[in-house]
């Protein structure tokens, strides 16, 4: 059993067919943590071995009937876990131990999953590379001189290096899809409100979505079945039923119309090799039966500006509770990026500026959302690269926040409008993975999963695991 190749699907099968045990799998994960974490810094907190093995043994005595029986997962450190340190990647919460579980954590536990540890991330979710962690930044497992993407950096690295079989993340502007793209993994940003945010440390309340990272689309769909659905503790989750996503992945792309936003492909600064890999993937989709047409998302050019007014505004509000009284260290402990976003947000909301800044951006948001809604009357899905570039080298962008912000240009409009999107691997340039983003209409997860799955089965890029 090679843990780096093992999927949730094959693990469950293996358990049920007695090919190996949960204890075997957990031990393999721990071995990889032991082997790689000091170099790649994927995890900030690891649950102690004894506890994990004890949990594993218990599950090995069952008939593995729960949907995630014995599956070791890693949680992004924004996910609140009872009794298990939760840092949000920040020194402010270096010693914070929550007294309650996030709803998603409770659901995953109830489904039989084993929580192995908490993943490294850009502090508070602020970043696209992983370099804004207050701890030691994680590294790309395909090339350790490069970034793994952020902000769910550790979550992606942990799956790629076989420290777990799946991980959770949050995606506010790119933070699940970006790392998934840079690490050759499947990452979902669900529809806003599809998955409960209760217990997930908030970055931007009207943008945050709760996603996850896996090796395959099937695994991802399976996890989404478990995490999605109404939560009485989160008023922004609706009553929509949760389909059995994992059962709707077959078929072809015949009858599907895919839209390519011309503004995205016209972007200067997109690496031509990324464009080539993307276009090859689109060609493949056509071969699989899809009809591809050009569409327009006219407000793409102002999406970043809109995002970088609204998100810091909500950030400045959500970080106001960190005053060092009931938990955490004082506000002087915030890192520079956090301070920057709080300052920008405070400025944009302040008296005299609210109308010109925040309100204007909120109106632009309406227009961007409408762009997507209009396009989805014509197509089943929109396809684009997740990132306009390959994984960049560590330090290359960290001193230029505007360049850093631009790496999200294909992904953040999706958060502005609230629709779902999934990253699926679509090739390599040398050793470096390229990710394809498939965007769907609101609550269209089944649709984008199916398209991603058909493409994945025809190309199997996930089989090229990390070189280490």
């Amino acid at each position: 059993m090679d843990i780096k190749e093992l999927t949730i699907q094959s693990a469950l099968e293996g358990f049920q067919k007695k090919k190996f045990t949960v204890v075997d799998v957990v031990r393999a994960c721990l071995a990889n943590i032991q082997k790689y974490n000091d170099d790649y810094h994927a995890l900030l907190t690891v649950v102690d071995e004894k506890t994990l093995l004890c949990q594993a043994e218990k599950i090995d005595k069952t008939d593995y009937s729960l949907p995630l029986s014995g599956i070791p997962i890693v949680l992004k450190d924004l996910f609140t876990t009872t009794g298990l340190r939760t840092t949000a990647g920040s020194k402010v919460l270096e010693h914070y131990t929550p007294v309650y579980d996030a709803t998603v954590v409770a659901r995953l536990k109830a489904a039989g999953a084993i929580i192995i540890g908490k993943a490294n991330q850009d502090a508070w979710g602020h970043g696209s590379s992983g370099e804004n962690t207050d701890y030691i930044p994680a590294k790309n497992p395909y090339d350790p001189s490069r970034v793994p993407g952020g902000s769910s950096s550790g979550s992606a690295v942990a799956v790629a290096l076989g420290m777990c079989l799946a991980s959770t993340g949050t995606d506010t502007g790119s933070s699940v899809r970006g790392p998934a793209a840079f690490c050759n993994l499947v990452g979902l940003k669900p529809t806003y409100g599809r998955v409960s945010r209760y217990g997930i440390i908030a970055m931007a309340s009207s943008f945050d979505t709760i996603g996850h990272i896996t090796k395959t689309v099937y695994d991802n769909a399976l996890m989404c079945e478990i995490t999605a659905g109404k939560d009485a503790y989160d008023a922004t989750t609706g009553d929509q039923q949760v389909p059995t996503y994992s059962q709707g992945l077959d078929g072809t792309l015949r009858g599907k119309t895919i839209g390519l936003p011309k503004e995205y492909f016209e972007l200067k600064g997109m690496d031509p090799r990324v464009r080539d890999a993307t276009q090859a993937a689109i060609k493949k989709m056509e071969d699989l039966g899809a009809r591809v047409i050009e569409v327009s998302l006219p407000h793409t050019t102002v999406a970043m500006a809109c995002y970088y007014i609204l998100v810091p505004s909500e950030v400045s509000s959500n970080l106001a509770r960190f005053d060092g009284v009931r938990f955490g260290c004082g506000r002087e402990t915030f890192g520079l990026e956090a301070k920057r976003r709080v300052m920008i947000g405070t400025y944009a909301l302040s008296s005299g500026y609210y109308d010109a800044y925040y309100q204007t951006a909120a109106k632009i948001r309406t227009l961007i959302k409408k762009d997507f809604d209009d396009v989805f009357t014509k197509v089943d899905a929109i396809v684009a690269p997740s990132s306009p570039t390959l994984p960049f080298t560590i330090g290359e962008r960290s001193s230029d926040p505007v360049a850093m912000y631009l790496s999200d240009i294909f992904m953040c409009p999706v958060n502005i409008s609230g629709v779902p999107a999934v990253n699926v691997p679509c090739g390599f340039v040398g050793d470096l993975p390229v990710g394809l983003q498939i965007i769907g209409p609101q609550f269209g997860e089944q649709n984008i999963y199916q398209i991603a799955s058909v493409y994945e089965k025809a190309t199997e890029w996930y089989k090229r695991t990390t070189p280490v």
Partner: protein
Amino acid sequence: MNYEPIIGIEVHVELGTASKMFCGCPADHFGKEPNTQTCPVCLGLPGALPVPNKKAVEWTILLGLALGCTINEESKFDRKHYFYPDLPKGYQISQYDQPLAIGGSLELSNNPIIQSSNNPIKKKIRIRRVHLEEDTGKLQHAVVDGQRVSLVDFNRSGVALVEIVTEPDFRSVEEVDLFTKKLQQIVRYLRISSADMEKGSMRIEPSISMRKVESRKSKVESGEYPNYRVEIKNINSFKFARKAIEYEIIRQTEMLVHGDTPTQQTRGYVEAKGVTVAQREKEEAHDYRYFPEPDIPPMRWESSQLSAISRQIGELPDAKMKRFITAYGLSAYDAGLLVETKERAEYFEQVIRQKSAVISLKTIANWIINKKVDIEKTSPAQLLEQIVESTVVSAITDSEMETIIKQVLLDNVKAAEDYKNGKAQALMFLVGQAMRLAKGKSTAEILKINIIETIKI
């Protein structure tokens, strides 16, 4: 130069819901051990989210309707940002530009209980808005390990709070007093809060400025408000509200007379000295950076829902008082006292329904008003008994009683014998016979006692 006070008030009422505004913690926090009624939401823990209490919203609308307000078809919550140790999230979830209710009024009119009819104040106070928000925790000062500190208890954090804001229509302390008492009465009638100033479930914050009276001849308001106002906090009784306002009026007038403009500020009332003192405040304090609360979807109301809520208002004190005057021929004063609380008014009407023709309305009213009947402990039937007993004691003389008892025992020798031999039933028979002879001038109880005593002899 004469100055007149321009006063507006903000009233906060803690709703008596079972649970808090945005979470399921118990809302009744009075006297509880500190920090024993909190959860991730009201403690402001990272990751927690608010979900609004339906009843709190409905009760706010109920109050708004009772105050003649228009209910906004679309309403929402907003975040109001400021830093203070008793505000766990660093913002309060409140309402800014789309409150639940706007534009109502309350007529002061004649409250016979608190003002004489010699100089009755009849005035309409405009209500700007009624909105819903959450309460903060509680701060108290202490010295711990030699250091001066503040101690914070979050049991009250998140309790549903209704805020009622008036226009600056008050021109005297008396008007404020009438208004706040009337508002308290209405809130209690609606049974949405205990509205107890001493317990803090009702809080008043007057804003006062002084305006030059242009002309003593003209009674028309100049329409312009002074360019400053002073807000007073830390008032926890009607009496202190009056004292604080009176003090402020004098303080501000003195300054103006000397050519100084009072500073726009918040002042706290200091009970022990009967004065107000400036509270330290940073200039940033008033930039609340409101924006719509992203965690809570907006609220929309249909007229059918509002009608349903409106029907729950019931008869309010003014209407009830008017009805008592006409229906029962009571004086305004008596009617005012009887309707002071809904419970007392309902009690009065229950007693009326059960009474016999012999007892007058006036007597009952008199009893309830003057004899401080504990309406919780004395049932209407019991009260009637007491009334009859006391009236009857004067209605029947000792010799009349003696005659009746003698007659009954004479006419019913066998029954008297039976009773002496232990048949309790016989006594009831004798009492019945005595009642007929007494013709309503006594009660069964009194007759029974007299029969027993006479037989013993």
